[in-house]
């Protein structure tokens, strides 16, 4: 019986229905301004590196925009599927540790018991002060 129903579904013209893998409309929303791009690069500490990467973000945003069509009035956001269960908390006792040596060995630069970072408090240069993008 189910098979017949599925068959009927198949026969309905595909054009009207939007298959869920159809591509995002490249002309649609999802335009990202230069300001936002610069802001994102700072936040993510990752640069776009190329115009294609910006185009990829715009496509990703246009894709995400399809969610706007869903009516979510009165729906609570879901963070975890275990939301109805108590989160397990172990008792606050030290059960392992004393592995500082081991952990420090994994780092590229340490001095005594410290990880070494270059000077802080210097922000990344603004985009227009930067060297032009160099592909890796």
């Amino acid at each position, binding site marked *: *019986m*189910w*098979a017949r*129903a*599925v068959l009927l*579904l198949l026969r309905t013209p*595909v054009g009207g*229905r939007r*298959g*869920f*893998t159809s*591509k995002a409309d490249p002309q649609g929303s999802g335009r990202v301004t230069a300001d*936002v791009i610069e802001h*994102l*690069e700072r*936040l*993510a*500490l*990752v640069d776009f*590196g190329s115009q294609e*990467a910006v185009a*990829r*973000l715009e496509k*990703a945003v246009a*894709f*995400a925009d*399809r*969610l*706007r069509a*869903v009516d*979510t009035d009165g*729906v*609570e*956001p*879901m*963070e*975890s*599927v*275990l939301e109805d*269960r108590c*989160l*397990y*908390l*172990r008792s606050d006792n030290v059960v392992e540790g004393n*592995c500082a040596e*081991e*952990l420090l060995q*994994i*780092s*590229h*630069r340490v001095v005594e018991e410290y*990880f070494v*970072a*270059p*000077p*802080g*408090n210097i*922000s*990344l240069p603004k985009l227009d002060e930067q060297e032009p993008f160099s592909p*890796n």
Partner: protein
Amino acid sequence: MLGRTLREVSAALKQGQITPTELCQKCLSLIKKTKFLNAYITVSEEGALKQAEESEERYKKGQSLGDLDGIPFAVKDNFSTSGIETTCASNMLKGYVPPYNATVVQKLLDQGALLMGKTNLDEFAMGSGSTDGVFGPVKNPWSYSKQYREKRKQKPHGENEDSNWLITGGSSGGSAAAVSAFTCFVALGSDTGGSTRNPAAHCGVVGLKPSYGLVSRHGLIPLVNSMDVPGILTRCVDDAATVLGVLAGHDCKDSTTIQDPFKPFILPNLTDVSKLCIGIPKEYLVPELSSEIQSLWSKAANLFESEGAKVIEVSLPHTSYSIVCYHVLCTSEVASNMARFDGLEYGHRCDINVSTEAMYAATRREGFNDVVRGRILSGNFFLLKENYENYFVKAQKVRRLIANDFVNVFNSGVDVLLTPTTLREAVPYVEFVKEDNRTRSAQDDIFTQAVNMAGLPAVSVPMALSNQGLPIGLQFIGRAFCDQQLLTIAKWFEKQVQFPVIQFQEIMDDCSSVFENEKLASVSLKQ
């Protein structure tokens, strides 16, 4: 011996037909012979042999640790392994040797299993082809199977055979290939949106994604914390149940594992399916689904129906938004998770020392591939103050609707859902790379990711070979924490369909010539 299931080889070990060391050596030698598949990133030959020796001692003394003692296994290279490089197939973690074992790895070692090595994947498990890792793509063993080659020979066009190798699917493609090519008896994968089930379907093996919260994620390098689950790849459903029995249960190092006691189970042989209700979600019939898979899907449903099960069409109305929702939640969690890779404490560090921020930025540029950087940037976009409500919170709301769709269906009396695992069979690499990673993932995760958002157990079971001679898998989805019921039904189905064994062994003899040709082919592809 290597073609056997875990259970069969375990019996052979107990009866002394083979020793753990012999078994280990056979697997190691097959790993070497099948190196051209690129399934393994690291082979831990020395460690495995040592573990085999210890296992052999135990067998001699009659003190075997159980069904897994002496059984070779492989682990996806995004699980931490003490003393063994763990790379996530990324420059960011090349050379990183964790000081501890992931809980799931430790549990297998504690049972006496032999760790053969770490398997290949898409960088940080982001992908659906196992083509986007820094160590190169994984090749599907079925590309070299007698079944596929014979079908290809019948075709008139004389394309170069060896440049037409197929992808494994992903992101746990190395693990699926390792099990499929008989180099181990079980492999661990991870499953965030289908990364275990998708390659299992393409490689003709069983791929289990357990319920979220049943198996510890401690030591699994996270992609999306609220959806990641360790996955199990085996040659049959019984084996997956055996391994789940060892892995499942509360871990005090992972607060998201549930505390309910878990008892390992042996799957019963179902003889009567007449009390079962199988749901067929109508939204999974999409225009993009290959007609061959569609007809196998109906055949499977008819099989249940003809044996007396109730098979009904059900609706999961928010299905079409699921992949979009997944995309937003995944990139957002990725953006936050990947913040840990800064070059300071572990992993890659660039040479720039002008400032901390410049060091971070350059390290991350050098360490991550385009796909990872792309997801980090998209995720950061969705998390911007002005976008947070419209994208991230919106997606979380849609997630609840998707999870509720499943709850409603199961409350209506459905025991398991039956769906395809993938839209089509494995495609040649040259076809696959024509589309970008995001588009590919949006297509390939289509039937699998909703399950992750709802935290449900699901298993892909190989059903039959396509006209091309390639495996096709179907997916069963169960109620949360009803993994045993799910596997019991999957086992019944597996027994009915009798999926053919890959005829790979014969190919091994001339695989050295294949390897030579392959090298040339992959060089020209990579450019």
